[in-house]
């Protein structure tokens, strides 16, 4: 009955890209965190969340994303977001996520940003 967030991971050289499809809420956020921590465990220090398939995020989802950002900072890694809807991008700015994570218009720009 309840739709869950779908995640797809593309492991590339030095950057892992996680594609989301659906609602980033408590369940969705936990899924992202789980995948992110696995990627950190695999040694990835550059993580990109491509939110092209996400139109909605709630406060629980945001708090989990903040935890993922903190985790990345702890391991001296970097997290970036791309393809955000204008609403989500504005929300990330208000909530301070943009201070600690890069926000890019599209995936190539984000990958370049993470590699430099």
């Amino acid at each position, binding site marked *: *009955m309840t739709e869950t967030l779908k995640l797809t991971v593309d492991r590339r050289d030095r950057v892992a890209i996680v594609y989301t499809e659906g609602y980033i809420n408590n369940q969705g956020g936990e899924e992202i965190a789980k995948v992110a921590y696995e990627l950190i465990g695999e040694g990835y220090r550059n993580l990109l969340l491509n939110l092209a398939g996400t*139109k*909605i*995020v*709630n406060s*629980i989802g945001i708090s989990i994303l903040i935890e993922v950002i903190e985790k990345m900072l702890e391991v001296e890694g970097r997290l970036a977001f791309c393809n955000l809807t204008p609403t989500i991008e504005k929300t990330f700015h208000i909530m301070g996520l943009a201070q600690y994570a890069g926000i890019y218009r599209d995936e190539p720009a984000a990958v370049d940003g993470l590699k430099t």
Partner: protein
Amino acid sequence: MDTQRALWDELLALAAREGDDRSYLEKLLGAWTRERGVESAALYLDGEGGGERLAAVGRGEYPAELAEGALAGLVTVGLPGGRLAYRDAVPPASDPLLLLLAGALRTLRMKRQLKQQRFQVDYRGVELEALYEVGLAIASTLDPRELSEVILLRAVSLLDARRGALYLLEDGRYRLSNTIGGEAIAEIEAADPRVEVLLSAGVAALEILPGAAHLLAVPIQIDGQPRGLLAVADKESRQGVGPFPPADRRTLGLFANQAAIALENARLHVQALEKERLEREMELAAEIQRRILPKSVPTVGGFDLFGWNRPARQVGGDYFDFLPLQGGRLGLTVGDVSGKGIAAALLVSTLHSAIRLLLDRIEVGPTLLQRLNQHILDSSAPNKFITLLLAELEPSSAVLRYFNAGHNPGVLVGQDGRVLTLGPGGLPLGLMPRATYREECLELRPGDLLCLYTDGITECMTPEDEEFGIERLTALLREHSRLPLSELAARIEATTDEFARGQPQGDDQTLLLLRRL
């Protein structure tokens, strides 16, 4: 002594560094275990689910999350907002390092609270932004489906709902317009008493969102009239889902109000567009009809002619025409289609084409009328018919042959004051199959004035529902029989308008005037 000094220096450096709380706690905990001769220990921060492990040292197994009885068999020391757990049988004792651990734990707890408060303050900004953006969307989008999506997305995310649905009222049923987070039932009977229970009491009497544990729904209303439903389900927290607090009903209501304004704007916009489209089509139809009616009056030696038409709406069901025939003869026709507006105008168009085409092959006579009757019967709705007066003038002999298919009797006023009426000689066209039509004939004398008209003239009404009538028309024709025909027509128009005393024109008005010089 050097080791001790190095430890203190390291702790001091860690304490000064922002964001290294866990490292600091681990280092401190390690120092404490060495000091106390304990092999392993863990430090927990109290939380909603029991406790979160912040640091652990040594080989012992310490759970990351504290559940009921998780620390059974361990020695625990209560600290402000947390606890220290260790396995060895060393009795708890206070010492400077333990005090430092307590202080660090307290600081961490305060930092977390501060962070949480900052998060909530920031999220208030998101809420305000959401309301502002919904307002902007209302101003910039008139697509009801797009609007309902914006509103539902905002409501679901701001209320931390796991799911949501927006329904719009159509034909007595709430139909699903948008859903987020899972399935929703496609439609709800508006008269279902459970809808009222759901909206007023907040009881999940209807399973709008199948499988949802906690439902909150509010009506979307315009001027107290229901237009839709906005529903959300299952308030999320880190621990799972729960019911919505009362404040959320007010917030959802606010979104429903916004939705109502937006959807009403969109509906009015669609209505305005439709009206504009219809007006354009009516204008086009009026243009087509103007082209059907004669643009000029033919010149016939020994006779004056004039035609005038004023539809009650943009397009009308009246028709008149001058038809040049072989041998210098002239056809004159006045018709009236039952009804008004577009439907009548379409039948006028049919009649016009049929007369023109048939006259290419058939002389004015009973066969022509019968063929016209059959054509109108075949090409119009069962309740539609046309009254028609079709005449043929032989200018050289001044003989007028005519057929009156159920039309208002024409009026002939002689210079000598005599009055003749051109009464009916058959049924209106399109009423009955195999109808027959009788030919009548009269000779026009010099000064004779013939007036063919439609009932919009004689049935023109006063506010008291008094008809203008054929007698007043005849009197007018007799009184002004010598006026130029255009002036006579203008006089008839002005007199009927005066008679109506501001009453709106109820029917199309047509005049065809013929005078023998």
